[in-house]
């Protein structure tokens, strides 16, 4: 199977690899997928005000899964939380030219963004002002 140049680029030079301190109140963590399915994505955001100022990821999965999550962190950095929520998996499919059998990778990346934001919002509600 041939990979698109963009998938190869993200695979070879993944952006924003790493971890943020998940205990911090302004950090949201999303972990989606399952090892049995061959994909696990961890995506974290650091929020200042309503803007995502930093994002990190780690992914267990195929090259397309790695590229999808790498791209996701690149896209959400600098966006507001609401803007990040609006990202749709089809945009990732388009940007990376993913074949049909790899569309689930983009779905997972979208889920990871939403899950990280949910976690952040839950923390905000739990934290007394």
């Amino acid at each position: 199977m041939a990979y698109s140049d963009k998938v190869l680029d993200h695979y070879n030079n993944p952006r924003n690899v790493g971890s943020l301190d998940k205990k911090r109140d302004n950090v949201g963590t999303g972990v989606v997928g399952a090892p049995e399915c061959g994909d696990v994505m961890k995506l974290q955001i650091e929020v200042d005000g309503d803007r995502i100022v930093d994002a990190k990821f780690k992914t267990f999965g195929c090259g397309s899964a790695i590229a999808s999550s790498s791209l996701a962190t690149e896209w959400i950095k600098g966006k507001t939380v609401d803007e990040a929520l609006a990202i749709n998996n089809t945009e990732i499919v388009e940007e990376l030219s993913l074949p049909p059998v790899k569309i689930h990778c983009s779905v997972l990346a979208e889920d990871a963004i939403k899950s990280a934001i949910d976690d952040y919002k839950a923390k905000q509600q739990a934290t007394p002002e």
Partner: protein
Amino acid sequence: MDLPIYLDYQATTPVDPRVLEAMLPYFTERFGNAASRSHAFGWAGEEAVDRARKQVASLIGASPKEIVFTSGSTEAINLALKGVGEMYASKGKHIVTSQVEHKAVLDTCKHLEKQGFEVTYLEPSPTGRVSVETVAAALREDTCIVALIWANNEIGTLNPIREIGELCHERNALLFTDATQAVGKVPVDVERDGVDLLCLSAHKLYGPKGIGCLYVRRRNPRVRLVAQMDGGGHERGMRSGTLNVPGIVGIGEACALCERELDADSEHARALRDRFEGRIFAELDHVHLNGDREHRLPNCSNVSFAYVEGESLIMGVNDVAVSSGSACTSASLEPSHVLRACGVGDDLAHSSIRFGFGRFTTEEEVDHATQEVIAAVRRLRELSPLYEMVQEGVDPGAIDWSGSH
């Protein structure tokens, strides 16, 4: 050293230059149809086929008349199972096979199930072996054939064929073995091992693609088949179709070389494999060997690199041509049925890579490949949230992932 490095000898092998040289005249000046009895062109073809038949038979301890040339193992498997099934249906319509067979056997059995046959799929041990006891327990009065792989194509595990052959003969059932990966790698002798039908394929033993054969026992017992290809009655009526003379010359020469060089080939591959595994296991943690350490092909190494997904690893080792048991290389998204049957978890199945070493693999190539694999695994583990958990003392296997989809 040429790149990429080929470590996928279970998938196919290059044609040995000596085999190619033997084949070439049969494309051009000796092009005759082996069935043309009336002229020298035909006689030259027939003579070449006779010689090749002897060479193939000799490698597996058969007599030349017991060799039926086919287009490869898949066709031979179809002929063996469907042919025996149809011929012996009145004796019984029960077939015994295993869960770790090649798809060609499994799908042929599925076909026969639709024709009213009953098939028992034996569960292997965790290392992929089918024991004599398991076979004995599954045999019935109406069992017409037992079909078991000799050496597994994914993990290289060797089945105790000789013991199973003895059992089958005692219990009056025929034994078919898919020996595609075994022939040329380990000693195979249909008499000593009590095999009634056996298939092999030239391209797994340094011969050309598109040619293989089915061994069909002629004595004690005489095995009869219903042909699956009707036509001119070639191959004693068992497989019609003009003989692929250059291919047959190729499989013959390839078998002759294997017979002469089997010990050297085995030792060569084993030494390279042990060198590879020695370093992989010394330098990386959380690495699992799939298959049977003791009863295994000398040239096969199937390894799971936990917390790294197989396809991404293959992508990371650009210079090395290998196969993965991971889902993502096939369109099915299902991990290997062989690893699954061995009880390997889907997570480790997704992390498995098969390395195959062969006649033309060099030490330099293995060292280069080993370095690449180690570097790629380390890099991908830096990216792996699962490996991070393990470093933090969390066992990913203990987590309920069901809510994370």
